[in-house]
Structures are given as C-alpha cells and as structure tokens.
C-alpha cells in the first residue's frame, strides 16, 4: 500500500467503568473532612459511571493505516485498567491505601499505568469523566508553582 508520508495522528478511545468511593482524609479531623468533601464524605461511599478517554499518538503506519491496533489498546486497558477498577470500591484497593480516591488521583493513576505498560504508541493524555458535568485531564509532568 502506498502511504502518504508518515504523518502523526492522535487516536482517542473512550471506556466505561463503574466504581464507588468515599472522599476522606486520615490527616483531617471529622469537621475538616466534612467541610472539605461535603456529601462525598458520606462514610458509606457512593458511586459513579466513569468514562476514561485515553489519547495516544504516533506516526500512521503505512501498512495498516493505524497509529496502533485498537485490539492492542483495548486489550491493555481491559486488562490493566478496567479489570482493576470496574465494580470495585476504590477505597479498598491497594492503589488508594495512601491517598484519597478523588478523580484527580484516579486519573493520574490510570495515566501512570498506561504510561508504564503500553508500548504500542505514545501516551498523550488521560481524561477521566466522573459525571457528565465534570472531568479531569492528566498529561504527565510535575506541578509547577
């Protein structure tokens, strides 16, 4: 097949999982937890349908027309992300033994999992929707002050 010159494209894929969490920090008093997290501090927890949007990039392969084979990306995300978090209580997972399972922290954890393990394309960013009304994005990098 002919290709065009190898051009760089970004491919994004969205996946759905459902999980529960409670936002509560051991470093805060009961009052402070309540003031900080409001109804998310309910001791019994609550749940969301999360949408995780994974964006990878790379040159479009001339033989396949693809940045990477979706089967590889889907397989990786299913195995390493969805099977780990879907239908779980995030607070009970070892990943959140030391940190509050906010969607910011979950987004960073998913980014790190994909960044460490997925070798078929370059990870650009992870975007995590907690509800239709709010979402978080992480593209790596340390915070700057």
């Amino acid at each position, binding site marked *: 097949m002919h290709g065009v*010159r190898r051009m*760089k*494209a970004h*491919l*994004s*894929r969205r996946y759905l999982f459902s999980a529960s969490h409670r936002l509560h920090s051991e470093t805060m008093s009961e009052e402070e937890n309540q003031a900080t997290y409001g109804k998310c501090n309910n001791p019994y927890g609550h749940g969301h349908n999360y949408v995780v949007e994974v964006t990878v990039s790379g040159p*479009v392969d001339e033989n396949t*027309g693809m*940045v990477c*084979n979706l089967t590889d990306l889907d397989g990786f995300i299913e195995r390493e992300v969805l099977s780990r978090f879907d239908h779980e209580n995030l607070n009970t997972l070892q990943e959140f033994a030391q940190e509050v399972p906010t969607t910011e922290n979950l987004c960073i954890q998913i980014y790190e999992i994909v960044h460490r393990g997925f070798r078929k394309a370059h990870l650009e960013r992870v975007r995590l929707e907690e509800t239709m009304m709010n979402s978080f994005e992480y593209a790596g990098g340390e915070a700057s002050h």
Partner: protein
Amino acid sequence: MVYLTRKAEFSASHYYHNPDFSPEENHRVFGKCNNPNGHGHNYTLEVTVKGEVDPRSGFVVDLKQLKEVMHREVLDAMDHRFLNKEVPEFLNRIPTTENIAIAVWQRLVTKLERAQLHRVRVYETPDLFVDFYGEA
C-alpha cells in the same frame, strides 16, 4: 487567537485490507474490519480553524464559506460512499479513521480563505476518534 469548530456528519462504508498481506495476516491485523463487503459508520467530522477576529465583521472565519468548503471538498465526496472504491485517496490507502482525518485535512488545508486550519477530528463512533494537526 480564537479557535472555531464546525461539525458535520457523513455516513460511509469501508473495509480494511492490505493487498501486500496474506489473507491470514489481513484477518489477524484487521479482524472483522477485513470483511470485503464492507461495513458502515456514521462519522462526525469536527473542523477547527484559528485566526484573529476580524475587527469589522467580528468573525474568525466566514462560517458560510467554511460550511460550503466542507460540503464541497469532503461531504460531497464521502457521504453515502464506499470509501475504498469511490474516494480516490483510498484506492491505494486503507480508509482507517487516521487516514480519513489526514485526507480531510489535505482536502481542506489549501481551500480556506482567511482562517488557518488547526485540527481535523473524525469520530468513527462516539467512543473512537482521531485528531490530526497536520504534523509530519
């Protein structure tokens, strides 16, 4: 700099096949997308242009002109077509979402009058989309 995005939809069929691959390899790489009779999608196209706001019109781009160019250059060629057989770019290039985004970019990039093309986004389904920024 202001960015403006215009959406459009088109429906088309395609299949994935590389004549340099063996039948087994085609099936392994492309899976059910290799069915030679094709299958279809409702594609959503998002074209983002950028530019400074014209002080007289208040526009980044003449939306009517953008809409006409998108129709003439892209939708008239791709809507309700079998991409592999009817769209010249795909006679010898696989019509993946990646290559569709590149083809749309190439069809539009020289045709816009005032604004500069920033991004072409093509959704194959709501859960799968490709962005192309003209990067080599």
